[in-house]
């Protein structure tokens, strides 16, 4: 696992700024009613329309900005090794059979046992193939003689 010193200050700075602006956007939406310059039940005055038209986009974009800075922070923590990345299941690929080589160092007893077993099976298969080919050639010679 790679370990580097995480640089988090810039992300936290962006997150704090986004959070404050998100709160400001929320207050902009509430302010006409909270401060009383928009009477209930009446048509919206131009200040209320302006506050809503500004406050809603500001709040939405600030929230998106906060989330993006947060994901960047998580990415930085993963890169520094503080957080572990998700382990994805990898499809197993069956490797073609290779005869064990004498020079390969055996790491465990299980490896050694399996290698011995595979070598014995390979030798047995080879012997059977040789026996089969001998019988076939014998039959061919008999047919030729007859």
């Amino acid at each position, binding site marked *: 696992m790679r370990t580097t*010193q995480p*640089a988090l*200050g*810039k992300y936290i*700075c*962006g997150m*704090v*700024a*986004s959070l*404050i*602006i998100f709160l*400001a956007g929320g*207050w*902009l939406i509430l*302010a*006409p009613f909270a*401060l*009383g*310059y928009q009477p209930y039940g009446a048509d919206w*005055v*131009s*200040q209320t329309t*302006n*506050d809503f038209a*500004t406050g809603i*986009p*500001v709040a939405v*974009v*600030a929230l*998106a*900005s906060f989330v*993006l*800075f947060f994901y*960047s922070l998580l990415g930085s923590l993963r890169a520094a090794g503080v957080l572990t990345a998700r382990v994805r299941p990898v499809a197993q690929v069956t490797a073609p059979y290779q005869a064990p080589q004498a020079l390969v160092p055996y790491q465990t007893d299980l490896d050694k046992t399996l290698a011995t077993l595979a070598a014995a099976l390979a030798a047995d298969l080879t012997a059977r193939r040789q026996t089969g080919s001998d019988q076939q050639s014998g039959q061919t010679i008999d047919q030729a003689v007859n």
Partner: protein
Amino acid sequence: MRIGDAMRRLVPPGSLVLFLFFLAGIWLAISPFAMTTQLSGQHWTAATVNNVTLGTIMMVVSLLGILGYMLFALRDLIRETQAKHGVAEEQAS
């Protein structure tokens, strides 16, 4: 590192969004006067005080966010460069 790459690290898309907030703050602060809902020479209404205050807060916070990100990114850039030089010197010696 090229200047373009360094600028990309110092000014990420997030800082551009913060600059949009800065522009929104300017608009909020001047909107009562631009929309003539605040008459000149009169005492400021509650809506004007609210908009000017919030606009100023948004301008200050977004500017601080941009500058803060830039300063931290610059510090990280300098540290990375120093670390690379240190490794190169160790390999050379």
